[in-house]
C-alpha cells in the first residue's frame, strides 16, 4: 500500500503552513474545466439535453421566421421605391403608403419645374384593380402603375426599351411574371404571342412582362401607359397624380433643391429624396400597419419561451445536484468557478441548439418562399444576429439559474 510514495510531496503540510494573513487561494482553473464539466453533465442525461435543445431550437426557429417575414415584408415593400429613377418625389400630405396613396394636383409638378435645378417631372399613377384570370375566370386584385412610357421611370427587372415601346399602343399592358400563380399562366400564354385579358372589366392586351414580385400589399402588378391607365381605372381624374417624380439637372444639390421645393410648394404635398421615400414606406409597415410590431412581438415571445426552457433545465440541474455543488465548494471550489460551469452549460445549449435551428429555418425559408412568393433570404448577418440573440437568451437564463447556487452550502453536507 505504498503506491503513492513516489508522488508524495516532500514538504509536510504543517511545517510549511503559511500565516493566515498570507494565505490566498491559488487561481481556479480557467474556462477549460468548467466547460468540460458542463458538457459532461449535459451529456450524462441525453433526454434532458434533448429537452433543453428542443427549447433552444424552437426559439431559434421562431426568431428566424419572424425576422425573415419582417425583412421580407420591408424588402418587398420598398421594391417599387428603390426602382424609381428620379431624384426627388412628391406625395400627398395624407398619403400613408404607396399602395393606398392619396392623389394631389398635377399642377404641383408644373410648379416644381419653375426651379432651375429641375430638369423634368413625371407623374406616376397607382390603382388597385381586379384582373380576371384568363384560365379560371376568377378575379384577383393587382397593383396597376400608370406612367409615361417614354420617361422610363420604373427600373423593374426586364423592363427594356422594347417593353416600354410596346405599351405606347393604347390598351396594352406589361404583366408581372413574378406575381402569384393565381393570376394565370402569364408566361406560357405570352410564349405564344401577346394575348388579351380583362383588367377592371376592360379588355387589355398583355404585350410583355417584367419582374417585381408579390409584396405584402399586392399579389401581382401591371404597368400601363397613362392613357391606358385612365381608361382602366375609370373614375380617376387625370389631373390628380399619386407620385410626382422629379429628375434634377446633373450636378444639382438634391438636399438644397428639396428645401427649395418645400418652400415653393403648398403644404398639401411632401417632398422626399430616394432614401426618404423608401424609409417612409418602411415606417408605414413598421409603425402604422403595425406589422413590424407584430413580428417584433413574435421575436420577443421566442426569446422568452427559449429563456424559460433553458432556465428550467439549468435550474433543475443545479437543484438536483445541489449536494455535488456543495461538495465542490467544500473542496475549495469558489462560487465563481461553479457559476462558470453553469454559464458554460448555457453556452453549450446555445451553440448546439442554434445549429439545428438554423438548418430547419433554411428549409422553412424555402417552403415559405414557395408558398407566399415573397423571397425569405438567409444572410450571414442575419444568422449572426440571431445567434447573438440566442446567446444572450442562454446567458440570461444562466445568470438567473446561477442564483440557485447560493443554496449549495457546504456546511449542509455535514448533517
Amino acid at each position, binding site marked *: 500500500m505504498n503506491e503513492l510514495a513516489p508522488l*508524495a510531496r516532500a514538504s509536510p503540510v504543517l511545517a510549511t503552513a503559511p500565516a493566515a494573513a498570507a494565505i490566498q487561494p491559488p487561481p481556479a482553473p480557467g474556462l477549460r474545466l468548467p466547460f468540460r464539466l458542463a458538457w459532461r453533465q449535459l451529456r450524462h442525461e441525453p433526454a434532458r439535453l434533448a429537452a433543453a435543445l428542443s427549447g433552444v431550437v424552437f426559439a431559434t426557429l421562431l426568431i428566424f421566421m419572424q425576422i425573415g417575414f419582417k425583412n421580407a415584408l420591408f424588402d418587398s415593400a420598398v421594391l417599387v421605391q428603390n426602382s424609381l429613377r428620379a431624384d426627388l418625389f412628391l406625395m400627398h400630405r395624407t398619403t400613408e403608403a404607396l399602395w393606398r396613396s392619396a392623389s394631389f394636383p398635377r399642377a404641383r409638378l408644373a410648379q416644381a419645374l419653375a426651379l432651375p435645378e429641375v430638369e423634368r417631372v413625371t407623374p406616376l399613377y397607382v390603382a388597385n384593380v381586379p384582373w380576371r384570370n384568363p384560365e379560371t375566370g376568377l378575379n384577383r386584385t393587382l397593383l396597376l402603375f400608370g406612367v409615361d412610357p417614354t420617361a422610363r421611370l420604373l427600373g423593374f427587372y426586364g423592363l427594356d426599351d422594347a417593353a416600354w415601346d410596346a405599351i405606347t399602343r393604347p390598351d396594352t399592358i406589361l404583366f408581372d411574371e413574378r406575381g402569384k400563380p393565381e393570376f394565370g399562366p402569364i408566361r406560357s400564354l405570352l410564349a405564344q404571342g401577346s394575348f388579351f385579358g380583362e383588367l377592371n372589366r376592360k379588355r387589355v392586351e398583355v404585350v410583355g412582362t417584367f419582374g417585381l414580385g408579390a409584396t405584402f400589399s399586392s399579389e401581382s402588378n401591371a404597368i400601363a401607359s397613362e392613357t391606358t391607365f385612365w381608361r382602366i381605372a375609370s373614375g380617376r381624374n387625370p389631373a390628380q397624380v399619386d407620385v410626382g417624380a422629379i429628375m434634377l439637372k446633373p450636378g444639382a444639390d438634391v438636399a438644397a433643391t428639396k428645401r427649395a421645393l418645400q418652400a415653393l410648394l403648398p403644404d398639401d404635398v411632401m417632398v422626399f429624396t430616394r432614401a426618404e421615400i423608401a424609409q417612409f414606406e418602411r415606417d408605414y409597415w413598421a409603425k402604422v400597419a403595425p406589422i413590424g410590431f407584430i413580428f417584433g412581438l413574435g421575436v420577443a415571445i421566442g426569446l422568452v419561451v427559449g429563456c424559460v426552457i433553458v432556465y428550467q433545465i439549468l435550474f433543475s440541474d443545479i437543484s438536483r445536484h445541489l449536494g455535488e455543488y456543495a*461538495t465542490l465548494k467544500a473542496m475549495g471550489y469558489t462560487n465563481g468557478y461553479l457559476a462558470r460551469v453553469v454559464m458554460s452549460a448555457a453556452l453549450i445549449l446555445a451553440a448546439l441548439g442554434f445549429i439545428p435551428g438554423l438548418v430547419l429555418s433554411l428549409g422553412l425559408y424555402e417552403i415559405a418562399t414557395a408558398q407566399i412568393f415573397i423571397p425569405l433570404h438567409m444572410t450571414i448577418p442575419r444568422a449572426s444576429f440571431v445567434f447573438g440573440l440566442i446567446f444572450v437568451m442562454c446567458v440570461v437564463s444562466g445568470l438567473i439559474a446561477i442564483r440557485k447556487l447560493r443554496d449549495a452550502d*457546504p456546511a449542509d453536507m*455535514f448533517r
Partner: protein
Amino acid sequence: MNAVEIRGLSHRYGAGPTALTVLHDLDLTIPAGEVVLLTGPSGSGKTTLLTLIGALRAVQTGSCRVLGIELSNADERTRVALRRRIGFIFQHHNLLGFLSARENVAMALELDPDLDEAERLARAEAMLHAVGLADKVDAYPALLSGGQRQRVAIARALVHEPGLILADEPTAALDSKTGHETMALLQHLAKERGRTVFIVTHDPRIHDIADRIVAMEDGQLVQPATH
C-alpha cells in the same frame, strides 16, 4: 506541531431571545498525525464543531487554528484556501455521477495549477489503486457499491495530500463489515502519510481505529479519553 488548536470556542445559531448556543467555550488540541474520533448524541454540537474546523462556517467566538491558519476573523478567501488543504469525507459520498471514479478523484487536484491533466489523472489512478479499486478507475458511481463509492470518496479526500482529513459519519450508509474495512483503510493510509484524521461518528464498531476518542454533550467536551 498541532493540526488543530481550539481555545474558548463558542458558537450559536440565530440571534436575540431565540438564539441557540451549540458550542460552549470549547478547548481541543489535535496533534498532527493523530486519528481522533468524536462521538456524542445528536444535537450535542459535533457537526457544528466539524464545520468550524473545516472552515465551512465563520468562527464567532474564541480561537480556532487549523493547519496553522487562525480562522477567527478569517475572510471567505482565507477559508476557501484552507479548505483546499483539507480532505472531506461525507456520509453520502456526493460523487459526481457524470464522472468516472478516476475523474472524481482528480477533481481534488484540478485546483492545483502546478499539475497538468496527465499528472492529475495518474495520481488519481494511483490513489484508486491504493484504496483497492484498481479495476474500477473508469467505472461511474452508479455502477459501484456503497463501500466502493465511499472508498472513491476516501481517495478523493487523500489524493491532494491534505494535512487534515475530516469525516462525518463515514460508515452510516455502509454495513458493519464494509464500514470497518473502509475506516481501517482510511486509518492505514492516513498513518502511512502522516495525515491527521478527525471523524465524527455514532458507530462504536470503528472505535478501534482511533488514537483518541473524544465525546461531546450539550456543546461541551465531556470525556476526553485515550484509546
